[in-house]
């Protein structure tokens, strides 16, 4: 099988989806730009024209509504937002409209949109250009949320999202763009709602999302040297969530660390921890720890960014703490104010 980067896979998958289904189109800021969304959309406007690759005015609210309206008229738009930070401006269309429509109208009118929300952080971009908002959307009942971490999953989840008849948010972290992986040529789906064990282990489970899966794998490799056998679970889909897989893993290992690179309070990690507290109490051998962003806006200075974003070291510290192997505190992640 070929090896592609995540960004290449994005580009190829979009291309194949657009080729294979006339009802699919792409709308959002920067989709015909040579640089705005990395290389993910390069060449698309040349192949599919400006009618199907619609670069929009800076008007997130209406442009998102336009995507939803097009879905109501029978199309399958991919609505791109170059940064999740800008999605606040589109919250009304996403939350009040897209997420409610099918239920509110008695299951009569589906809204088959894929929302491509990009996390673009680091590089001293600061508080308005760094946010990861998966929890806000997971909180909404009527929208599915997926967070692919590998090129293979990206393709399968993007295809499944576009083919799904419901609003699906695909959270795309640009820190993944250079990740390499084997990717089949043809289109395939990964069912929304299936997690995957990235590394089987016996002593503790790290349930991670997106980029943090790679950090968890690094942590597992490092801990292996200390004789710790870590299981790494890639949630892949945050809503619906693969509870079965999560529960089975924790029942096996008895210990859970949740790693999600977004704010702690009411975040995705909180939900996973709450589910564990609700359903796995008898199986847990210790507390559930969260490795997340601290509850702080993103700072600009690289000196602060280095402290702000959680890494494999935070995961290692959390696991060691759970195993009682180390006095080290999970300072950054557990700072929770």
């Amino acid at each position, binding site marked *: 099988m070929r090896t592609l980067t995540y960004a290449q896979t994005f580009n190829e998958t979009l291309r194949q989806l657009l080729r294979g289904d006339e009802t699919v189109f792409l709308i959002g800021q920067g989709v015909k730009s040579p640089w705005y969304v990395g290389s993910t959309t390069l060449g698309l406007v040349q192949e599919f024209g400006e009618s199907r690759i619609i670069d929009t005015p800076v008007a997130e609210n*209406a442009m998102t*509504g336009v995507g939803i*309206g*097009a*879905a*109501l008229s029978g199309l399958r738009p991919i609505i791109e937002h170059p940064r999740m930070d800008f999605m606040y401006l589109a919250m*009304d269309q996403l939350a009040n409209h897209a997420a409610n429509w099918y239920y*509110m*109208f008695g299951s*009569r009118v589906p809204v088959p949109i894929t929302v491509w929300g990009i996390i673009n952080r680091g590089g001293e971009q600061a508080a308005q250009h760094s946010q990861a908002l998966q929890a806000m959307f997971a909180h909404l009942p009527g929208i599915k949320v997926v967070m692919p971490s590998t090129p293979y999953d990206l393709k399968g989840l993007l295809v499944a999202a576009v083919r799904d008849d419901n609003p699906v948010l695909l959270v795309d972290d640009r820190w993944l763009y250079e990740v390499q992986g084997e990717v089949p040529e043809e289109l395939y789906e990964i069912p929304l709602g299936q997690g995957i064990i990235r590394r089987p282990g016996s002593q503790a489970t790290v349930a991670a999302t997106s980029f943090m899966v790679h950090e968890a794998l690094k942590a597992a490799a490092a801990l292996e040297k200390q004789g710790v056998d870590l299981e790494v679970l890639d949630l892949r889909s945050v809503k619906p969530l693969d509870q079965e897989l999560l529960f089975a893993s924790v029942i096996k290992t008895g210990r859970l660390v949740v790693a999600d690179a977004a704010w702690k309070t009411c975040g995705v990690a909180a939900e996973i921890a709450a589910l564990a507290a609700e359903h796995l109490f008898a199986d847990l051998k210790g507390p559930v720890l969260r490795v997340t962003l601290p509850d702080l806006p993103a700072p600009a200075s690289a000196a602060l960014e280095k402290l702000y974003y959680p890494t494999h070291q935070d995961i290692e510290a959390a696991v060691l703490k759970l195993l009682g192997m180390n006095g080290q505190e999970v300072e950054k992640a557990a700072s929770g104010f």
Partner: protein
Amino acid sequence: MGSALANRIKTAPAGLDCQHDHLAECSPEELREMARVMTRIRLVEERIAELVAGGEIICPCHLYIGQEVIAAGVSAHLRPDDFVFSTHRSHGHYLAKGGDLKAMMAELFGRRTGCSRGKGGSMHLVAPEVGYPGSSAIVAGSIPLAVGAALGFKLRRVDCVAVAFFGDGAACEGAFYESLNFAALKKLPVVFVCENNFYSTHMPLEEMQAEPELYKKAAGFNLPGVRLDGGNLGEVWTTAREAVQRARQGHGPTLMECLTYRWRGHVGPDYDLDKDLRTLEELNWWMNRCGLKKLEEYLLSRGFISGAEAAAMVQEITGEIAAAVDFARHSPFPDKKDLYLGVFKGKQP
């Protein structure tokens, strides 16, 4: 409050005479059909007012009485595969587009047989089978949806048209301007129908808008904007014909500002006369220029309809309404299973 604008329209060259000219372009059949649509809306709304007052309907109902000309005059030009998007004040648009009355009444009664299976209520009627894909109760919320549907039509290369009905209050929301811009930029087949009834809840238009002549907003986006007497069916009908035709032929969007008035208060059957929100004088002024009554007089005076035919029409509609209420009353309520059903299409995760 609001009377400055009421005065403005008083002096406008509108009324029965002007209506004659425009209406002359309609066939008697078309006129009779519009009279039927308007009468039906009026009688349905009056019945709903009673049912709300009587406590049988619980959900908040924003009545369309007084504005019927607009829904009827615009929808007369629409095909079932054209889309209409509406607001919290949606009964008239739903009915004019051909939405089923029984399903609507059952919806207002919160029954499983309602058009939205009891999950939407008055503000969220739906009739996809006749091009009514749902109404949003978020002010200005469905305007971008209409633009999006129009984009969809264009991409699919079908000659359908999308219509966004909305109020004067919606013209305060940024989404309205973003929508005008995109629709004009891409020359999309959409008609923006602003029903300016001079109030947004308790707020008179002049207290909300630095430029209360709302059709003027269009000029800032290079699309035609017209202000018309929303009580004058002829004006509405001919303007809508042109706007729908422009859209259908690929010439882009139009903004129609229709001056009108809701006879009842913002929500429910009351008249909002107490509490100093508006005056009886103002209400009377508008009720005296009832578009429905004017149309009836026109039809009768031309012999397009006889008194007996008119009475029969009312009777038929009254019977239909009674049957719808009966249907609603005897329909089952949704239950726990319904509650958990249908957040997502397809198998539940």
